[in-house]
């Protein structure tokens, strides 16, 4: 197997700004990627994540800010001089070329000899497990195979940075999951610093070393997948990543009180007054109304959704619906109509005001 770029380089984005006809797409994005790191930019449609990637690729020009590869300022370089490999959301194989010719295309532009082109394109196809399909044209490959060839093509030129622009979104769920793992395997193998753009939170959390959640052109939080999920920095991140209960309560004395239950705050300096406590479904537990689970909240189970190992139970508390995520075996004890008591784990919670709702994903 060939070694490609080996250890990647540091990639730094400094205060990148871009607007289109007065509409701000990117509002001061700053981000540093360690060599060989895979960072996923996650966010709803229109949050600026693809714009950020296109600025890194050189396919668009920033209004201001800098893009640095390994300490070198590449902001002014055109796309063909930046030495990036890119896989696009749309199928981008050149239809008149075979898979091998596609992979060799970039090599030929980099003045690699014909024999070396053949050798390296063969190795790249082997890396993505498509050696057998070297002589096939794009229309003879499935969507997943085309994206794997596109990945091989992007890596063949040993790019400084690998950019993946929602490469899995056109694929069905099963292929997507498999290819996601394969991309991660290949990326770890070649060690290229990689920026992965997606609107699929599961994809971002599964594949990335760090996830950057974007909203309205700004980076809301950049952290490890675990931290993004379990310690969201802002209400937007809490609501965009994973499911969140929005429970009406009141902030009082550095705590939020929800129906008599007092929960500590992530940011205790929040002003007193009405607020929405953001609570993960897995922080909610259920017990029979007269059972042993203590807690002042009681209600009726509305639905139970089977998700495999876990089930999601929806409970009506009278004017407020709360979701609880339980092991399926445990959830089976609470069919629809059962009276239950809820308990909320006293983890620090974020609060939101009524207007701060996560946008609906298109």
């Amino acid at each position: 197997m060939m070694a490609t770029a080996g250890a990647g380089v540091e990639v730094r984005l400094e205060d990148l700004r871009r607007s289109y006809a007065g509409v701000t797409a990117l509002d001061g994005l700053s981000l540093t990627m360690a060599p060989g790191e895979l960072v996923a930019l996650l966010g709803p449609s229109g949050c600026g994540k693809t714009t950020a990637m296109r600025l890194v690729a050189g396919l668009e020009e920033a209004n201001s800010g800098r893009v640095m590869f390994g300490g070198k300022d590449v902001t002014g370089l055109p796309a063909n001089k930046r030495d990036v490999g890119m896989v696009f959301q749309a199928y981008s194989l050149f239809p008149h070329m075979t898979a091998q010719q596609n992979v060799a295309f970039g090599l030929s532009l980099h003045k690699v000899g014909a024999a070396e082109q053949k050798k390296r394109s063969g190795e790249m196809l082997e890396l993505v497990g498509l050696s057998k399909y070297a002589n096939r044209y794009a229309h003879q490959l499935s969507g997943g195979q085309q994206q794997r060839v596109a990945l091989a093509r992007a890596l063949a030129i040993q790019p400084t940075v690998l950019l993946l622009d929602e490469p899995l979104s056109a694929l069905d769920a099963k292929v997507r999951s498999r290819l996601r793992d394969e991309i991660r395997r290949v990326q770890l193998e070649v060690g290229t610093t990689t920026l992965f753009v997606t609107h699929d939170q599961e994809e971002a959390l599964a594949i990335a070393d760090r996830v950057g959640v974007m909203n309205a052109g700004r980076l809301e939080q950049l952290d490890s997948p675990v931290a993004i999920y379990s310690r969201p920095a802002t209400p937007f991140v809490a609501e965009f990543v994973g499911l969140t209960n929005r429970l009406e309560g009141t902030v009082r004395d550095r705590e939020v009180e929800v129906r008599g239950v007092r929960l500590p705050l992530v940011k205790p300096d929040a002003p007193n007054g009405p607020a929405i406590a953001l609570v993960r479904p897995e922080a909610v537990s259920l017990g029979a109304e007269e059972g042993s689970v203590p807690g002042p909240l009681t209600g009726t189970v509305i639905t139970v959704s089977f998700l495999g190992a876990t089930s999601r139970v929806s409970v009506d508390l009278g004017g407020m619906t709360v979701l609880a995520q339980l092991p399926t075996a445990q959830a089976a004890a609470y069919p629809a109509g059962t009276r239950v008591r809820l308990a909320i784990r006293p983890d620090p919670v974020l609060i939101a005001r009524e207007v701060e709702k996560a946008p609906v994903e298109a």
Partner: protein
Amino acid sequence: MSRSRRIKLQVFRATVFLLVGAFFLLPIGAMFEFSTRGNSVTSPRTVEAWTNILQAPDLTKAITASLELAVITSVGMLVLLLPTMVWVRLRLPQVHRIVEFLCLLPLTIPAIALVVGVAPIYHWIEINVTDSILILSFVYLIIVLPYSYRALDAGLAAIDIKTLSEAARSLGAGWGTVMFRVIVPNMSTALLNACLLSVAVVLGEFTFAQLLYFVNLQVAISYVGLTSAGTSIAVSLASLIFAFTLLMVLSFFGRPRERVARAEENLPGTESRVLPLRSSFIGVPDK
């Protein structure tokens, strides 16, 4: 479908085929018959009208000039139109409608009005630069625009030009490489169509040449027709056959290539998809 219904359908198809065939072939047959008539009703058949084509120096000169004009116009059209249309699609999509309007405009202007417009310019060029018939290619470039634009536009719409060019750019390709190694090979049919339409328009053009005092193929045919109707018809028929041959060449080069993977990929158990066009692959989705 019942047998009787199938037979009825076949009879209907055959009838339509024969009627349409007769519609096209009868006039051509009549032209051939006329061009091979002798001087009187009782005279035997002769190919004199056809041999006259080669022997008439003015006519061969006009044919050569028209062919040269066709080539220059086609090349000029491609050089002018293709990069413009690609650039508009990639960088200036907001002016797409304006470019389309400008390219289709010549269709709405009568040839005579165009001639009146360009005549002073041609007069100046003939006096100060050259009086070669090849300068007609400038005005021919304008009149082929609507047809070529439509053909190229269809070709560009058939490929995801933005993604392909961006993919090529990210791999290190300059704009020239993007154009010649990525875009052009993927719209060869559209390019050939545009060229064929240009050639057909130029070979059939009469008004501009006549009114600007140039002798191209159609003008020469009209002159020959004054002295020898048979030769005139023979030339017309020859140009029809030429256009037909071009069409055949186009359909040969322009048809989608049958891209069949090599034998080793067609082994039992290997994954592949159902291929368009006479494919023998067995469809199994991505593994």
